[in-house]
């Protein structure tokens, strides 16, 4: 059964010619790279060497890539447990990520975080939480700091549809509106929380973004299989935030093509229809953009193959880096409990 249908328009309303070829290539390649990295992780996960609970972003890459591209390098992002896409899109270091997944001392969090806590402050991937909605109030604080320090920095915070069931989310939204914080709420609505569909958790009669709008925030729902829609919407929101216009809520609708956690799809267990998954495979954000670009002669198979080949080398190297890196030592265990 296809409970959650695609309701977007593909790229039919998008004028791709507005964008430079360079930008489009970058965006597409960023998505392809994230996909390839995750597919490699997937293919090796059963080897039981990445001892970390992973949550793949496959199917939802356009949100990560579109949003991060629309933000400035100096802007900051915060993320829920589904980190890979956000970390990589914001410029996170692949080697440090792979080391973290392989629990090595030179992981981006020194093996203290794992997949759910890919953090790299040097690129503005500031923090994450494995507690649903836990990162939202923290991102608010970052926006508060930006405002108090008059930094002109915009904060983006990624979270799932289920995060909107946590009270702290609404407390945060209220505060951000009250204080006109420079923050963009990037809801990744993939219709599911683990195996539970949205309509078992929130009344089907109301859209997520409408609830947010009810609080007095500018709120939009977008087809987040269309990367350019994400990009455009976040760009506008960031501009507004930077100019003191306060927060924006964006509901990014896209489908999680894999299981909630771990490798592969788990839909056979019955919590969602295989046909539903299939139907969304057809509007994979990478393929749709790729096709659109091909149609506009902005890319061809060769260029893609080239990029893929280079990326595969990069990935192989990162995996090699990770598995050949040292484990953390026992005496590091009690370090960094307190800051000096």
């Amino acid at each position, binding site marked *: 059964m296809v409970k959650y249908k695609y309701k977007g328009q593909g790229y039919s309303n998008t004028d791709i010619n507005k964008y430079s070829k360079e930008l489009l290539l970058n965006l597409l390649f960023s998505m392809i790279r994230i996909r390839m990295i995750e597919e490699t992780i997937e293919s090796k*996960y*059963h*080897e*039981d*060497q*990445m*001892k*970390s*609970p*992973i949550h793949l972003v496959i199917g939802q890459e356009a949100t990560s890539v579109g949003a991060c591209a629309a933000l400035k390098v100096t802007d900051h992002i915060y993320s829920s447990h589904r980190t890979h896409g956000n970390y990589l899109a914001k410029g996170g270091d692949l080697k440090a990520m792979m080391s973290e997944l392989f*629990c*090595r001392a030179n*992981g981006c*969090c020194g*093996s*203290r*975080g*794992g*997949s*759910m*806590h890919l953090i790299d402050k040097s690129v503005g991937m500031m923090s994450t*939480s*494995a*507690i*649903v*909605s*836990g990162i939202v109030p923290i991102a608010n604080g970052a926006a508060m700091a930006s405002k108090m320090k008059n930094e002109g920095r915009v904060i983006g915070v990624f979270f799932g549809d*289920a*995060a909107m*069931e*946590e*009270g702290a989310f609404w407390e945060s939204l209220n505060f951000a509106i009250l204080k006109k914080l420079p923050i963009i709420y990037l809801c990744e609505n993939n219709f599911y*929380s*683990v*195996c*539970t569909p949205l309509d*078992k*958790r*929130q009344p089907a009669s109301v859209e997520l973004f409408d609830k947010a709008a009810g609080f007095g925030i500018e709120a939009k729902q977008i087809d987040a299989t269309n990367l350019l829609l994400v990009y455009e919407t976040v760009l506008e929101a960031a501009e507004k935030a930077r100019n003191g216009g306060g927060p924006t809520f964006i509901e990014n609708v896209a489908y999680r093509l894999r299981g909630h*956690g*771990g*490798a592969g799809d788990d839909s056979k*267990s*019955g*919590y969602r229809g295989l046909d539903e998954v299939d139907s969304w495979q057809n509007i994979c954000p990478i393929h749709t953009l790729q096709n659109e670009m091909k149609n506009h002669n902005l890319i061809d198979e060769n260029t893609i193959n080239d990029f893929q080949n280079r990326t595969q080398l990069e990935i192989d190297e990162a995996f090699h880096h990770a598995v050949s890196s040292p*484990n*953390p030592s*026992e005496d*590091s*265990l*009690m370090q960094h*409990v307190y800051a000096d």
Partner: protein
Amino acid sequence: MPWAEAFLNTQTNNSENLADSNERHLSYTDALHEALDLALELDKKAFILGQGVNDPIGMFGVTTDLYKKFSEERVFDTPLSEEGMTGMCAGAAMNGMRPVYLHNRPDFLLLTFNQLVNHASKMHYMDEGHTNVPMVIWSAIGRGWGSGAQHSQAVQGLLLSVPGLKIIMPSTPYDAKGLMLSAIADNNPVVIFEHRWLMKQNGYVPEGIYKIPIGEGIYRTRGEDLTIVGSSHAIALAQIALDSLAEEGVTADVIDLRTIKPLDEKIIIESVKKTGRILVVDTGWAMGGVCAEVGCLVAEKAFEYLKAPVRRVGLPDSPTPAGFTLEQYYYPTSEKIADAIKLTISNDK
């Protein structure tokens, strides 16, 4: 998570006593499933809720397909809203229902302390006993497989001083079922902490209804050299540690508290009077919490019998690291417990 599953299988202490093959054996999860099944059957007021209770896997198998048998009205998935749902359970309990609210991880209970500590535990006292709050909050401690700082915590120690609350930490399938039935039948808010490393353990589980008194510990073994007190998975580790010292002739009273609140002071003191030595083991942090309480209790009420310093083995005073290697350093092992046993019995006053 394939590696996590594989890992769990190797870590599980399959201490099934196969000697008496006439006994009925069930896994820990099946024992819990049976308890819930029986409770739902027996008491129309009982209901089950939690994120994922209706999932294909069904909360580690504890709730699998119960909704099919008892309807989605009585076994239902919830919005995340942990605080709101806990209060909802309290309100339903105050009105004659018997909710059993299941969480994947105790870490999520930290979202609910306002309803649990400020409300559910106090309502009976505050209105002079007119209102009962018969609710069960269940969660499974997630040790290992990269759970990390926010998905691995054993927070029982944080709740130990909360008046009006009962706290259960079963270590065997037998107790898991019996204590769940007791908890559902109890007229107070009861928090149950399971441990994921016990979940695949098999053991003797009688059919039908039986209850285990809440607030009573039990001797797992009897011995002379010291008293080991703990609960849940810490007891399993302690028993392995003790077994490893059998050749050296070390014997101990091993007390499985089963309930950490109300605390069975009697059995602890009775044993320490005999052995004069105590080691407290817990799945939570050594500082504060269960280790501290039991250690202090003995120094207070059995001081004259103590022949050696009180010792405790719990978690060090740091958050949980996510990585596999660091986890090995972080968690108490049966080896570390064996060392503590040796210290305790060597160290005469």
